[in-house]
């Protein structure tokens, strides 16, 4: 009979179906991920993991441009395809506003976003959508959101970049897309994509003053306002000249503990005199994190130069600190943002940075050093900034039950943005009652350093005494290198630190100290760093380190080792 044969056939068909189903399911899973992937990583074989090998097809906004894409030579294929989307303005209100690819008036050339996406999705390329106005953001994202669940819609399984020029550049000729609208919409409607932020176009870049051809630290804080809260990968689109002038700032962004990448682009107005920062950037950053979309002449210069990675030791060890962020009462970003090049404290003082280093047993000594860079937000005329704004370093007996950003029962070392320095012993009222011995100690020591934007500081805790030395310094690294830095001073490496008495260019530094009672556990205190005062005074900490040396315990351990050795 034919029955067994049929049964086998049914079995085979069923298994094929289930296999297909399984494949479909995995493919579906991959879709969501692929749109989030970095373009460089996705085309690993073609780019060799280097963003310089990326080829971009610009302004593919019309039918002829699309056809051109289809006829590309196979070996020299572009990997990223860029399209600009506008909102079509109709003269008659009965026509609905629809997203289109170019604002061309001729109906024959006009391509709607939906048509474009359907064609582009089948081209097997990464897609970059440039949102050219605030109004177009919502309708396009709404469509993309809906398309994920609609089987008749084009399937997106290549990296997707959503770009908008959200930052207004100096002498801009177009209006910026509202960053909060753009960020919140992408976050809600299509989080599985790379979010790209850029600056608006300028009429003639060569005429712009040099000081506007860079990203300042203050602007970086402004960028963080939008970037720090996002979960999705973020890309920053920077002009070549600007990148050359903002190496430090860009390296800070790339060092963040989240997925941030950089797209460096150029046009005919870009003139770079000093290529070194660009070479450094290329060699210091991870290759797949920096993408290049350059003119041929600029690309050649880069290609000729060696791209071997150079040692870029992190100036801040993210593993040795832990950020604790409490919810803030304001809508502005209030947090601590961690980067391999230092933490940044923003907004209201609701964040704490705790050192993981275990407190050493007394006698011993611990030092907290670093450089603080204050970045006050621009405030309106007449608005006064709280004088007590700055960095606070808490030395706490116990740190385990933190329930608010205000640490009480601690020794507070404060470095104000105006150079005010203080060490203060703040005790919980209940503790003060019990301990009469506390009254034998002074509760506060204050000092004043000359006003600057940047200060280098060293806080030394020897258990029985806490001292702080604050030195106003120049903010840019290049200039500071010529100057003597506090961190290099030989006497500070020793135990005995004297007030600064240099005869030549004695900087008006502040040195204060306060004697303190020992902790009950006979150990040094735990360390936490926070912000105090005005939410408009943000700051960056550079080269922050917490080091402790307990010499005695070291000897004890050696003696212990020896005794163990001999007792065997």
């Amino acid at each position, binding site marked *: 009979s034919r029955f067994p044969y049929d049964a086998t056939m049914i079995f085979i068909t069923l298994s094929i179906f289930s296999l297909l189903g399984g494949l479909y399911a995995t493919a579906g899973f991959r879709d969501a991920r692929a749109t989030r992937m970095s373009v460089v990583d996705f085309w690993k074989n073609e780019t060799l993991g280097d963003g310089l090998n990326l080829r971009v097809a610009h302004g593919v906004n019309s039918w002829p441009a699309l056809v051109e894409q289809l006829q590309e030579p196979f070996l020299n294929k572009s990997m990223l395809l860029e399209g600009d989307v506008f909102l079509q303005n109709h003269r008659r209100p009965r026509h609905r506003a629809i997203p289109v690819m170019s604002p061309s008036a001729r109906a024959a050339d006009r391509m709607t976003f939906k048509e474009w996406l359907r064609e582009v999705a089948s081209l097997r390329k990464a897609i970059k959508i440039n949102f050219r106005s605030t109004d177009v953001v919502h309708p396009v994202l709404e469509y993309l959101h809906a398309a994920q669940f609609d089987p008749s819609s084009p399937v997106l399984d290549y990296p997707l970049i959503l770009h908008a020029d959200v930052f207004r550049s100096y002498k801009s000729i177009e209006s910026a897309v509202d960053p909060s609208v753009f960020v919140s919409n992408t976050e809600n409607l299509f989080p599985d994509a790379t979010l790209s932020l850029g600056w608006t176009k300028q009429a003639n870049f060569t005429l712009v003053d040099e000081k506007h051809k860079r990203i300042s630290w203050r602007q970086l804080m402004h960028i963080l306002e939008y970037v720090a809260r996002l979960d999705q990968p973020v890309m920053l689109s920077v002009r070549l000249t600007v990148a050359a002038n903002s190496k430090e700032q860009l390296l800070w962004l790339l060092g963040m503990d989240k997925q941030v990448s950089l797209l460096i682009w150029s046009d005919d107005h870009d003139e770079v005199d000093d290529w070194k920062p660009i070479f450094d950037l290329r060699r210091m950053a991870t290759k797949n994190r920096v993408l290049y979309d350059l003119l041929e002449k600029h690309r050649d210069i880069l290609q000729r130069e060696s791209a071997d990675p150079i040692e870029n030791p992190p100036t801040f060890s993210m593993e040795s600190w832990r950020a604790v962020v409490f919810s803030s*009462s304001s809508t502005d970003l209030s947090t601590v943002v961690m980067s391999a090049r230092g933490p940044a404290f923003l907004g209201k003082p609701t964040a704490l940075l705790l050192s993981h280093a275990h407190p050493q047993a007394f006698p011993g000594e611990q030092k907290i050093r670093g450089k603080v860079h204050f970045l006050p937000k621009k405030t309106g005329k007449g608005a006064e900034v709280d004088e007590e704004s700055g960095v606070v370093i808490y030395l706490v007996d116990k740190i*385990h039950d933190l329930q608010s950003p205000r640490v009480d029962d601690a020794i507070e070392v404060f470095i104000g943005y105006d150079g005010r320095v203080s060490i203060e012993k703040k005790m919980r009222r209940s503790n003060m009652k019990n301990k009469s011995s506390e009254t034998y100690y002074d509760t506060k020591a204050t000092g004043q350093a000359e006003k600057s934007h940047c200060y280098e500081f060293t806080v030394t805790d020897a258990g029985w005494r806490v001292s702080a030395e604050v030195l106003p310094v120049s903010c840019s690294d290049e200039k500071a290198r010529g100057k003597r830095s506090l961190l290099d001073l030989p006497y500070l490496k020793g135990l005995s630190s004297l007030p600064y008495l240099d005869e030549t260019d004695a900087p008006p530094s502040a040195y204060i100290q306060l004697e303190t009672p020992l902790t009950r556990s006979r150990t040094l205190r735990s360390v936490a760093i926070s912000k105090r005062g005005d939410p408009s005074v943000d700051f960056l900490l550079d080269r922050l380190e917490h080091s402790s040396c307990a010499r005695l315990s070291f000897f004890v351990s050696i003696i212990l080792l020896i005794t163990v050795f001999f007792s065997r």
Partner: protein
Amino acid sequence: MRESLLLLATCLLVQRVASLGCMVKVCDGNDKNELRKCPDRDGSCGEYKGKRSDGILLDAIDLRCDAGRKVFAPIDGQMEFFRPFGGKKDKKCADAGVKIEGTGQWQGYVVYISSVELDHFGGSVKAGDELGKAMDRVCNEDESQKGVEPHLQIKVTKAGQPIDPTYHLQQCMCTGQICEGNIANTLLGAPFKSDSRYNGVKGYDIECPMIEEDDEEGKRRAPIIYSPINGEIMGRARTHFDANGYYSGCENDAVFIVGTDQWIDFEVRIYNARYREDLPLGRHRIVQGQPIAVRLTCDSAPDSVFVEIRHQGRVIDVSDMITAESCKLPNLFN
């Protein structure tokens, strides 16, 4: 024995914790924090996003309160003076209010109350502290023109965005703090997850680490567990029993509470906790926030307690009521 005595002593010291997410009485004489009647004489409403006399849908509530009554702080925090009418000349007689920036469990919240004649103009306040006297908000209007009941306006924001404070103020159905040392019921992992350690039931894994003693260095004790609801304690519950039908194992212990009052139809089981031995055996009444148990200290006991909540016998998702995100009872009848 000594340990239980010690425990009793500590329990007496920390009698009843404040309930989470619920604000206390704001206006003297309005114990239940009632709003002004809706619709009022002029048809306006004092509820959240209700239409006010001037046609505005306001992100605030109007709490009934006669002028001259005492006004209390609804939350713990730092208080400040603020001008609700921004110095408008015609509103001068009511242009005073208090802004409280929350601390502790209210970190990130800000409460604005107007109009209040303040006793003091700054500093930290505890929930229930007297702030001043209520003022007549419509003092500039003629007596015959007054269209609404006398009231205080309360606006609450969280991370800068206005939120609906109604259910934080009245019919507040938030569970209290559950574990000592975790004032905000911080959860481990996802809310309303199933846990194989406790028979795979769905519930909330609430962080509950050991408490370090203040006076003795390095000594740690088990944290106290507070009742999340008003109810009757039924005693111990067990997760599993062995092949012989006996309960065994150190971590095999839980507390079982049946709700009363507004918590009627609710049942709560708290796993990884031992029923307080000094409490009398058998069924008896307890109130929200009362210390009822201690966390287990077995070697294998995790640093958390697991809470299972049932309504009419069904396991329910009340994440917002646990984390005090919202204290409104969700619709459980569907």
